[in-house]
């Protein structure tokens, strides 16, 4: 943790990815996918824990569920963007709500991508990879 000054300087080989969701079975599937792609996977069960983990572990990317008890994904996203130490974190918002207002809310909160559940595992993996590659290039 002290080896990197910023998350983007983490080695590209094992980027750290945080999964924040309150549905255990969805976490199981996401964890399996991310690990298979060779990422280092962290898990948080609610919004407060997710924000703690982001500040503590500086993951390169967060898969963030929008509706979690305690602190919603939108609130976490806003808090991350407002915190200079972690504001560069890539955030992919996952939501089971498909209304346009919910989308707008997600984009307004500053998410890099917005994915509705249920999602295609291939597309999600593809998107995560691309984002990490773009992030590394920048």
């Amino acid at each position, binding site marked *: 943790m002290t080896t990197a000054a910023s998350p983007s300087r983490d080695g590209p080989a094992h980027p750290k990815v945080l999964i924040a969701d309150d549905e255990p*079975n969805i976490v199981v*599937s996401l964890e399996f996918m991310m690990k*298979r792609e060779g990422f280092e996977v962290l898990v948080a069960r609610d919004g407060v824990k997710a924000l703690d983990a982001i500040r503590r572990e500086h993951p390169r990317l967060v898969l963030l569920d929008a509706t979690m008890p305690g602190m919603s994904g939108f609130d976490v996203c806003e808090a991350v963007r407002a915190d200079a130490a972690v504001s560069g974190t890539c955030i992919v918002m996952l939501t*089971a*709500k*498909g209304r346009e207002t919910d989308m707008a809310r997600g984009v307004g909160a500053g998410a890099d991508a917005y994915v509705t*559940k*249920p999602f295609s595992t291939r597309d999600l993996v593809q998107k995560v990879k691309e984002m990490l590659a773009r992030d590394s290039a920048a």
Partner: protein
Amino acid sequence: MTPTLTAAPVLSAPLVVGVAIAYLAALFAVAAFADRRARQGRSVIGSAWIYALSLAVYCTAWTYFGSVGRAATTGVWFLPIYLGPMLAMVLAWVVVRKMVRIAHSYRITSIADFIAARYGKSPLVAAVVTLITVVGIVPYIALQLKAVSSGFAVLTGPAGAAGGAGAAWWQDGTLLVALALAVFTILFGTRHLDSAERHEGMVAAVAAESLVKLAAFLAVGAFVTWGVFDGMADIWARAQTLPGLHDLMRLGGAEGSASFGYAQWFSLTLLSMLSVVLLPRQFQMMVVECVDERHIRRAAWVFPAYLLAINIFVLPLALGGMVLFGAGSASQAETFVLTLPLSQGQTGLALFAFVGGLSAATGMLIVETIAVSTMVCNDLVMPTLLRLGAFRAQAGGDLTGLLLAIRRAAIVGVLLLGYLYFQVAGEAYALVSIGLISFAAVAQFAPALFGGMYWRGATRLGALGGLLGGFLVWAWTLMLPSVAKSGWIGDAFLTHGPFGIAALAPERLFGLAALDNLSHSLFWSLLANVSLYVGLSLWRAPSGREASQALLFVDVFARGRSAADPIFWRGRARPDALMALARRLIGPEAAAQIFAAHAHTAGVADPTADARLVDAVERRIAGAVGAASARVLVAAVAEEEPLGTADVMEILDEASQLRVYARALEEKSRSLEAASAELSDANAQLRTLDELKDDFMSSVTHELRTPLTAIRALSELMVDAPDMEEAQREEFLRIIVAESERLSRLVDQVLDMAKIESGHAEWHAVDVDLAAVVRDAVTATRALAQARGAEIELAAPSTVPPLKADPDRLTQVVLNLISNAAKFVPATGGRIAVQVSADADGVEVRVADNGPGVPDEDRDTIFEKFRQGGDALTRPPGTGLGLPISRRIVDHFGGTMWLEQRQGSGACFAFRLPYRPKKMEETP
């Protein structure tokens, strides 16, 4: 003990003149103040009290001085003059209110205007009424002048001044008083022309005067009763000893006849009853200056109360004066109000009493001359000028200045006529007799005025005949004798009749000698008046214009000022000509106002716009020059079609049809409005429902997508990785099955919920033993609970009284509560306590667990849809619909479900069902 009048102390003339002038100046200040406030739109006369006080202009110097005089000579005969008005005010709400409504609707400014307008706006009727008024009112004005000047004489000179050396000077003094009052009246009433409509300053000043004269009279009365004598009983006791005084206290005939003077009482009461409305000043105050019809209601008792108050001390003053000055002083009793305080050395009080008398006189003079001058200007001079073509010659010029000049001249003229009469007849008659002559003259208006308000068939010819006939009889039987008795003309005809024809002797017409001369005159004049009025009206049918005005007057309450009112006018008029006419008579601003108002209310397409505009202009001009002159002026600038009786009926018919349409339209628009309100309510309700549905759909979608996400993701992962470890694959498959189950349970419950909410759920109400239901449910869930390491304890009576409910639904509720409890019990040592208890009203079921309980922040929302308790990680799969559905079921059977507040750990859900629900819920 009997001081003579000559011994009275005397005040200096300059002091009395100075006080009088100061008093008039104060009055003028009151008037100026009221006028200024009126111009600012903050009227001071908008009060029923002011209105009632202004009616007290009825009490003139005649009341102030004359009542005492009459009481001293004839006893209680002063009373009918005040009983009449009291009786009249009983009818005020019916009659006066109608007069006020008519006058305001058609901008009527005088009694001549009122009568003339009723009879087809006839200039001739207006002129006749005005002439009768002028001739009839002159003696009355003379009376006021006499009162002021003789009061002045009593205060400043030796008593009995008329016979003294200073007599010539004081007669000139009366002239001065008349001229001074003329100037004052001109200042009061004719400073600007819009005063043709309302004189707020004058009303305020008159109300103030009414207070002053009442206060002064009461002060003198109280002083004499309690200051000089020892109360009323004392005066009475001492008066008994006077010779001849006893006769005064009987209600006998005036000239000493012993029988009760029914005829005279009746005629005096009738006369005063009529004059309280018909005297020009009374009409002015009561009708023209009335700002609010509702004021009449209060005036109906305040004004009679005022009359009562000002009469309380009349008898004590008369008797007291005669006790003090001797019975022979009765002839000078008219000045008792002044001489009594003077004889006691109370010069200040005497001066106050004089101011009171001055107040009474000036109030009357101002209002009377303003009213009469308006009539003379509008109904005598203007029509003459119109006939002479004077206005056409100076077409385009502003006439308001001319109108004011005519009115001012009329004021001076009327007052000078009064002075002249004073010179001719003033010394011969006592004050009261002079007043009664005027009363009898204006009584001649009664048939034409009141008949016109209630009888549609009355015609112009009838009114003219009645007025002239009554007036001539009055002049012959009352006016001429009064002149003759003053010695100005020979009085031989009084006793022998004209040319020796005894049957025509003025005071014994056709040998009728049983009545006193006033009743005699009243009888014959009103007989002639009414006979001619009715007879001539019936003889010829009214013309179109008379018929239309009759309708407008008689049915004034039936017509509001709405667009559907009939306009009895046909023809064509150029708006610019009307405008020019209006500008000349009422000024450019007011004229522009009429046209703006008309443009506002009438659309361009309005076919009656012409007639309506003409009517508006004519009504407005009528306020300035009177209805009759306004008619002539408008007719001169418009091309009019003659109006027949048939036309009037046709117009009336159109108007009533129009009104029916308007009412129907109004009704339709009202019902449309109501419908629109209902629709918008329904719309709002729908929108709320729509929002609720939207929220529900959003929640359901969310709940469906969550298990779907896991199922899809895990399935895809297994498809993509055929080489997956067996254990992994098994775990994934187990999750997929569980999530699929959750999904189908969710679908079932959503459908169930939707059914209940939409009211389509099927309910079977049969007799249910709730204890049995609970027992079955416990048996069914025991295995599930044991799988989670929990024991169920059941405490229930073997049977409870039956309820009317659906057993399947109740089973659903109990199962839901038990399985909920099973989800939250700790992994080891879980306990679920189920309890059933029955009381007199119903059955209660409790399901408690020893789990973590419901956090405080969730207590309020636990029964809402898709609110699942507990931590998502540890929580067994649920749909968030179980509790809401359970609660709705309980609600449906008239029961309640709640979360019990519990000490310690664990949650306890409970519900209660009554044996006899208050009402089955129709829809949730």
